[in-house]
């Protein structure tokens, strides 16, 4: 960080809430965040939350077992809609993950210091969302144990290689790289905090585990110098990466010739939609965590306000995307394109289309008003609506384009079965379980970065 940049000026702005409440010291920040992990007593609320998630994990286990025994026929996918819940949920989950990378990488490069108290759990959210997303295409192959040689180029006994001209292969590389880099970024950020936990824990076993994970980090100035370089480079690498991932996800559609998919607007429209959905999910998670763990002094109204503004901006970009789809349906003068957009608005899935418009275009407009951005119930409700809206958007993109393409003979309907819903709710349960384990065993807020934004972290001029 350069010398002209003074975090105190951010705090002292009387008009806006601070990014950390005054009165904290290096010690109090370390102890407060560390105490959630090092406490002996697990709060009852934690068991309730983890229990709900664990029910979902059980459901996921049952669904997957049934799927592997009986095959993908238990799902609602059939001709002509071969991409049902799998691709809808894959795109939905991976999009949610993108907000975590945006907060940790792009906002770091833009020197948005308010990101500090939300980046750790947003990155955790990214990892868990990518894990949930990756399950869908893997199980959609029907035989995941064979998918290794379909998807990854490794020398196999059949002497064949994957087809690199297919966007689906690009997707494998994009998602695998994204998952790996997100994990590395998250882990590098954790190293100094793991050292803090190692030094603070009084019991042997936690001290040993945190000590091994911290790898002997001792806060040496020479180490910090390389650490900061690595962290900044990772942020710089993650920024184009996160944009490329959803671009490539959109190529899965845009490279095809199906009406409603074959559009150049897809990459930016998908990336904006991902950030939109992701920030909604960050708010959905941050609001209860903040209340439950009494983190109002770290995750202040300033954070919630800023995230609401990002939702509003990306929501407007997404709304522009919907407008352009409708405009090109008319302007292209292509009968299939215009049929596609009219079918969305008036066809069998019209209810979902209009729900999507209501959720993604109308609901976020509430955030124009400061009173809405300052109201926690409003923030929470709009975020939930946006999450539903983005799921509807993926449903509309996947299903309405496939169920009526060019020939009346290839028309059909798609109805998800209970096993489709089972896997969807199952991955939500997996996500919740992983998140609760993270909250219990790792510092949910980056302790060392919180120290840097304290006023006393500043080195004063020596006389």
């Amino acid at each position, binding site marked *: *960080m350069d010398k002209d940049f003074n975090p105190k000026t951010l705090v002292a702005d009387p008009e806006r809430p601070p990014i950390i409440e005054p009165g904290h*010291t*290096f*010690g109090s920040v*370390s*102890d407060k965040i560390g105490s959630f992990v090092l406490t002996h007593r697990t709060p009852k609320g934690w068991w309730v939350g983890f229990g709900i998630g664990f029910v979902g994990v059980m459901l996921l286990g049952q669904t997957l077992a049934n799927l592997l025994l009986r095959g993908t026929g238990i799902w609602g996918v059939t001709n002509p809609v071969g991409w049902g819940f799998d691709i809808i949920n894959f795109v939905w989950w991976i999009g949610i993950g993108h907000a975590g990378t945006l907060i940790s990488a792009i906002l770091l490069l833009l020197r948005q210091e308010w990101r500090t108290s939300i980046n750790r759990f947003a990155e955790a959210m990214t990892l868990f969302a990518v894990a949930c997303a990756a399950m869908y295409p893997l199980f959609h192959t029907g035989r995941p144990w064979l998918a290794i040689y379909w998807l990854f*180029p490794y020398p196999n006994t059949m*002497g064949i*290689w994957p*087809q*690199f*001209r297919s*966007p689906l*292969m*690009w997707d494998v*590389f994009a998602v695998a*790289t994204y998952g*790996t*880099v997100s994990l*590395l*970024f998250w*882990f*590098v950020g954790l190293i*100094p905090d793991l*050292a803090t936990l190692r*030094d*603070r824990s009084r019991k042997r076993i936690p001290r040993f585990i945190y000590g*091994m994970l911290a*790898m*002997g*980090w*001792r*806060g*040496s*100035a*020479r*180490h*910090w*110098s*390389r*650490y*900061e*370089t*690595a962290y900044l*480079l*990772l942020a710089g*690498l*993650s920024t184009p*990466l996160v944009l*490329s991932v959803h671009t*490539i996800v959109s*190529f899965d559609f845009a490279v095809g010739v199906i009406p409603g998919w074959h559009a150049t607007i897809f990459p930016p429209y998908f990336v904006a939609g991902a950030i939109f959905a992701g920030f909604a999910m960050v708010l959905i998670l941050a609001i209860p965590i903040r209340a439950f763990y009494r983190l109002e002094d770290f995750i202040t109204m300033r954070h919630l306000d800023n995230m609401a503004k990002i939702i509003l901006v990306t929501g407007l970009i997404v709304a522009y995307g919907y407008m352009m789809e409708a405009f090109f349906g008319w302007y292209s003068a292509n009968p299939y394109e215009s049929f596609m957009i009219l079918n969305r608005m008036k066809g069998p899935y019209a209810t979902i289309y209009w729900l999507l418009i209501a959720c993604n275009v109308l609901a976020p407009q509430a955030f124009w008003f400061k009173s809405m951005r300052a109201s926690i119930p409003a923030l929470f409700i709009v975020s939930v609506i946006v999450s539903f809206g983005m799921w509807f958007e993926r449903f509309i993109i996947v299903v309405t384009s496939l169920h009526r393409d060019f020939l009346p003979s290839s028309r059909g309907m798609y109805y998800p079965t209970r096993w489709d819903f089972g896997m969807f709710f199952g991955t939500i349960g997996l996500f919740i379980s992983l998140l609760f384990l993270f909250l219990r065993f790792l510092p949910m807020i980056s302790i*060392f*970065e919180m*120290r840097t934004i304290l006023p*006393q*972290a*500043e*080195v004063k001029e*020596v006389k």
Partner: protein
Amino acid sequence: MKRRRPIYGLLAEFDNPTDLVAAAQRVHDYGYTKMDAYSPYPIEELHEAMGMHGNKLPFLVLCGGILGGLGGYFMQYWMSVIDYPIHIGGRPLHSWPSFIPITFEMTVLGAALTAVFGMLALNGLPMPYHPVFNVPSFALASRDRFFICIEAADSKFDPDATRRFLETLKPRAIAEVPH
């Protein structure tokens, strides 16, 4: 003079980053080279005070990225054109635009892996044991204390003179670091 047990160095403890940076500057100016400072968060001014200029990591990451990108491209070229040529939709075997997304992803992957493992390797981590951990108060280096250690291996190190020098820096405490 009675013989002392060999020690790793002397560790001075400070309360705040300003004192630490000022002390590190003095230690550096005095000519100690085998020294290190420890802080609970990165301090930009400290690197300057200790006379550190950049590091090798960005260059390594550049190399990692280039290798990843070239490796990614030629992997696809070799597999699609040489080892297993297959005609799909009349497209040329060397259909380079289709190879760009994976080349890009492999570039990022190569660079990111180099950044993380390069940083750990240059820092000599993992290193579970280090003599400074023998000083009990050093546990606070990951909370709210700041330390400077002058190593006994430094050519200017003398147990008594170095201690007297450290005392002039007005630390909170000075401790011997046993091996």
